[in-house]
């Protein structure tokens, strides 16, 4: 793999400092040198590297999606996910994985797969070069209870294949289920601790017994796996803290006690609220029969208001809030995930700098790679980079536009190389 030198770029390094004009050298899969240039500063010479003259474009770390469902298939119902046969489903996941990388998400944290092995197979296929995709942490299916979110079986069609979740009842069933996913090779176990309004059990209700949760966490941790939870309700968030469930998805409903608890344990948890789902389900799903009147009745408007309030409070208390979540429905199609950053600025009160840091600097620990490998542009870090036409600090929405992402590099290799000026007449010489 050829060395690459980016010259004449504005470097956003993920430290929180303002961007500076400089050069960045990639050797192999690592960033080896970041240097400032400017009037009177001569860049150190480099031999043998491919030179990319950025002409003032914005160079930033690749983004990390904290709540990814490759196997959600851009359909309007949960039922439609399971109507897809496994052969088509794996090809779909492969296609979506490439789309994420193409849109600048060089890392993704799997939040649940719709069939037992989809996430594991995709992660392995990315890692062995069979397919193209971001760095990936593979999740289990969502583990749930009969009648909970994820149980899409019907009374007359009770076969488990109809459900995108894995349904357990009792601590020993939970243990067996977790062990099966560990055997398959997942990186994380996903528990649905709260309900979800669209499924019948509202988001502010809780499912699972304490002993079921404790069993799952014990089993997962004994294998060194991470636990993540769908936790919308106040009580389910408290259970996450109590049981040491590291990744908290949604966290819509909070009270002072919950906020205090999260603040006290803020180094141990990540929050990915998935605001896109609440916003778009509430206001932009009429085309699929979910008019604002219906979603208001379902409770999504109330939850959206609560979630915004909770996230504003959590931000002020310094809890890590990350982008990503529940893209992969008809009204939140895969690849539009950078809208989360816009929502963070618009609704949560983040500065554009904070929003960018949430997608980059916090990505290293979120990917379980510590804080000295991934998520920043610094000497020795992995070379996951985006070259952006424009300034996301001035307009965070440029990251939603594929044509503004001039180049995407993962692990030192261009997934999408910057366009080169080529000779006008196409001519091949033998």
């Amino acid at each position: 793999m050829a060395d690459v030198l980016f010259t004449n770029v504005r470097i956003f390094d993920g430290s929180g400092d303002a961007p500076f004009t400089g050069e960045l050298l990639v050797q192999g899969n690592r960033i080896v040198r970041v240097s400032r240039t400017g009037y009177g500063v001569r860049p150190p010479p480099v031999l043998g590297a491919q030179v990319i003259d950025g002409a003032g474009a914005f160079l930033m770390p690749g983004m990390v999606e904290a709540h990814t469902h490759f196997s959600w298939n851009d359909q309007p119902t949960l039922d439609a996910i399971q109507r897809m046969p496994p052969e088509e489903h794996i090809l779909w996941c492969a296609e979506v994985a490439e789309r994420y990388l193409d849109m600048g998400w060089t890392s993704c944290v799997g939040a649940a797969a719709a069939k037992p092995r989809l996430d594991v197979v995709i992660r392995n296929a990315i890692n062995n070069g069979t397919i193209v995709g971001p760095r990936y942490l593979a999740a289990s299916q969502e583990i749930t209870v009969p009648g909970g979110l994820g149980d899409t079986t019907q009374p007359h069609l009770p076969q488990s294949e109809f459900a995108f979740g894995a349904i357990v009842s009792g601590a020993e069933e939970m243990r067996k289920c977790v062990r099966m996913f560990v055997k398959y090779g997942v990186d994380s176990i996903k528990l649905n601790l709260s309900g979800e309004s669209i499924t019948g059990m509202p988001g502010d209700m809780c499912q699972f017994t304490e002993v079921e949760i404790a069993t799952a966490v014990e089993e997962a941790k004994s294998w060194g796996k991470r636990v993540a939870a769908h936790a919308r309700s106040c009580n389910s968030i408290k259970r996450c803290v109590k049981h040491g469930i590291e990744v908290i998805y949604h966290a819509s409903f909070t009270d002072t006690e919950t906020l205090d608890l999260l603040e006290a344990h803020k180094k141990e948890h990540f929050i990915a609220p998935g605001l896109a789902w609440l916003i778009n389900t509430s206001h932009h799903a009429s085309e699929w029969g979910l008019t604002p009147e219906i979603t208001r009745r379902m409770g999504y408007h109330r939850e959206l208001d609560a979630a915004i309030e909770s996230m504003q409070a959590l931000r002020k208390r310094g809890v890590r809030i990350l982008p990503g979540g529940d893209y992969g429905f008809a009204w939140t199609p895969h690849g539009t995930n950078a809208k989360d950053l816009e929502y963070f600025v618009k609704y949560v009160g983040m500065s554009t700098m904070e929003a960018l840091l949430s997608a980059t600097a916090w990505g290293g620990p979120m990917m379980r790679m510590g804080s000295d490998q991934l998520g920043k542009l610094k000497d020795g870090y992995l070379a996951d980079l985006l070259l952006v036409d424009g300034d996301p600090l001035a307009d965070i929405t440029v990251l939603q536009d594929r044509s503004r992402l001039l180049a995407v590099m993962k692990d030192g290799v261009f997934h999408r190389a910057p366009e080169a000026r080529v000779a006008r007449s196409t001519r091949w010489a033998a």
Partner: protein
Amino acid sequence: MADTLFTNVRILDGTGQMPYTGSVLVQGNRIRQVGRSTAPISPGGATVIDGAGATLMPGMTEAHTHFSWNDAATLAGIQTMPLEEHVLWCAKVAKRYLEAGWTSCVGAACAKPRLDVVIRNAINAGQIPGPRYLAASQEITVLGGLGDETLSHLPFPEFSFGVNVSSADEMRKAVRLFLKYGVDSIKLNLSGDNFTPDSPAETTWMTDAEVEAAMHEVRIRGKRGTAHARSAASVKQALKHGIDVIYHASFSDTESLDMLEAAKDRVFVAPGIAILYAMLHEAEAYGITNAKAQAMGYQIEWDAAIESLKAMHKRGIRVLPGGDYGFAFTPHCQNARDLEFFVKYLGFTPMEAIRSATFYGGQIMMKPNELGLVKDGFLADLLLVDGDPLANVAILRDPKRLLAVMKDGVFAKSPEIAAQRRWERAA
């Protein structure tokens, strides 16, 4: 889709005439004009590819493709691959075939029920790159026959790459299931194979009632029957029941050759001789020494096959390349080696070998009037080859010599373009 003009190419058009210098204009997915002169066609808005004397020929057709064979050394090794990995494997192999110059492939059987259908659909939907493809069923076989990999204490059908039937009714049901899934062809294993010593190549085991039931269902839905048929008896059985695509046909007698000749306008033979050769001479690394291969009967079959296929070629029966690539000793994408074997052992001229991969390819793909030639109005499936395949057919399996591959008017492998040396980007 941009139009493309190939100038300064030697056109090997597949009709049998010697190559000539000229230019070829592709508009949309069709060849619009073939110019027989050194003065090029006017490009209009087309991208001009100056071939600098390279050979332009029709894309090749593989007549006996198993995307789901996974380059393993054993038949059991195919089934140890889980479903999800198997689909991704097939997708990757499909892309490799296309890039290796096989712009069309005829599926000869897949290892799990829906693999071929799903891959064909994904190619046609533009989800994955791959050749034009006809999707096959699994191999339908009998208990203990080639394709039945179950063990007595592990009788589960998932262990087999084939589907076991016993009786005409079971056959009918199996065929209907595959037709429901959307296959283009039904594959029947009418004979054994020396790879499975308990059911060797010269055994023929399906009842006429079973074959008849299968072909009845196939005809009702307008699909095609294909057969694994190594023994002379199985070739005759295939012909008797109207099976058009005969794989292997190693053993023959005067009667079977006469029957083949009588049906030569509808029948295709794809012998797959690479695996016979590889088992005898190139499988030692996988535990199959020459002595062992001889004991399995491969020398006898090789000798018989050479004689049979030479006779078929003389009688004007269409013999096509392809077959049983996808084992450790016959890895995928070495398929053009079949053309070398045809020239070396079966008495084909290089021109005949190339026509068997191109002109006959359009016919076996059921598009005889629009695929397989470089001709006005034909589908733009083209290869740009560095060198003269008539002088050395072996160059067709060298990726470096395949300068470009076009399928349906779109480059699957683009010719390298002379670009400016320095990357420069203006934001």
